[in-house]
């Protein structure tokens, strides 16, 4: 085996214990008679030893408290679906994020309410359905907005 081939192994599989026994033996044999490659092997081992010797410290304690605070304060404006339908409606009326969704949703709510009021005079069952439809539509509208602003950014980076 020539020096450059030996060193190719030295820098990777040999030093990481991945070379098979036969290759390892041939490299050892070469190193025994080649001061240049021996020096390379020792240099790799030395840098590796100093890298392994460093102390691993944990993060300072205040990071957790800062993180917890950031998470808890962020939670209040997160995911209107979690807060139930009342929270959702409140968000539409008062939330700053849904400028465009607000007008559409309010119009939608009025429309469906008028429709529901019209139907309720005739049939109780239909009213129940309309109510479901109302919630469903409002939720759909908001989920669409959520999707536009929150998904497809952070997650992709880590999975692509």
């Amino acid at each position: 085996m020539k020096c450059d081939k030996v060193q190719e192994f030295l820098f990777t599989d040999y030093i990481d214990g991945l070379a098979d026994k036969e290759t390892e033996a041939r490299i050892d044999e070469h190193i025994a008679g080649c001061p240049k490659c021996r020096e390379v092997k020792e240099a790799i081992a030395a840098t590796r030893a100093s890298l392994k010797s460093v102390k691993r410290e944990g993060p300072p304690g205040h990071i957790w408290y800062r993180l917890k605070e950031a998470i808890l304060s962020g939670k209040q404006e997160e995911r209107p679906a979690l807060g139930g339908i009342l929270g959702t409606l409140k968000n539409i009326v008062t939330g700053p994020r849904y400028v465009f969704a607000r007008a559409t949703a309010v119009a939608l709510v009025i429309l469906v309410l008028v429709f529901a009021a019209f139907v309720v005079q005739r049939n109780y069952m239909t009213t129940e359905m309309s109510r479901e439809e109302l919630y469903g539509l409002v939720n759909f509208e908001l989920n669409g907005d959520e999707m536009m602003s929150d998904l497809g950014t952070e997650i992709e980076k880590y999975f692509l």
Partner: protein
Amino acid sequence: MNEISRESIIQAAGGDMEAFEALYKATSGFVYNVALRIAQKTSDAEEITQDVFMKIHRNLKEFSFKSSFKTWAYRITVNTALNHCRASMKDKDVIDMENVGELASQRNDLKEKIDRQDSEAKVSEMLAALSPEQRAIIILREIEGLDYKEIAETLNIPINTVRSRLKRSREELIVCAKKGVASHEVR
């Protein structure tokens, strides 16, 4: 680091703050260390650590258990730290154009190096000679002890690329640690 249980991840993803704290306690050590070694400054490492856990918290629901939680967390950490380095390198470039940035930042780094112990300073100096990407792979292999497959998954590169990057980075390290020994004679 011990592998985190599936239940505790699901609990934390469901908003259980105690479960998330346990997750933080189990993983913040390596997150902080990898961040510190890549970014090379404690203030940057703190910022990166917080950023990483905000991302973990936000995306925990999407975690699909396809890779191990450990690999996932390493990946977020390395990506966040590298992005951080790229951003601060851009800032540096701006100052460098006036030819003062390099010296000023070296002086700041030096103060921090003196505060640490000897072997610490040596390691910091060695790692500083590498590019952030080379630092990342050396840290994962030599300090965190990941194998080639785990590194490949973390950095999202083929195993042969892991091998060639490791070789290149180790060559650089040797050039820096013992000037003139290896790399000129290697080729």
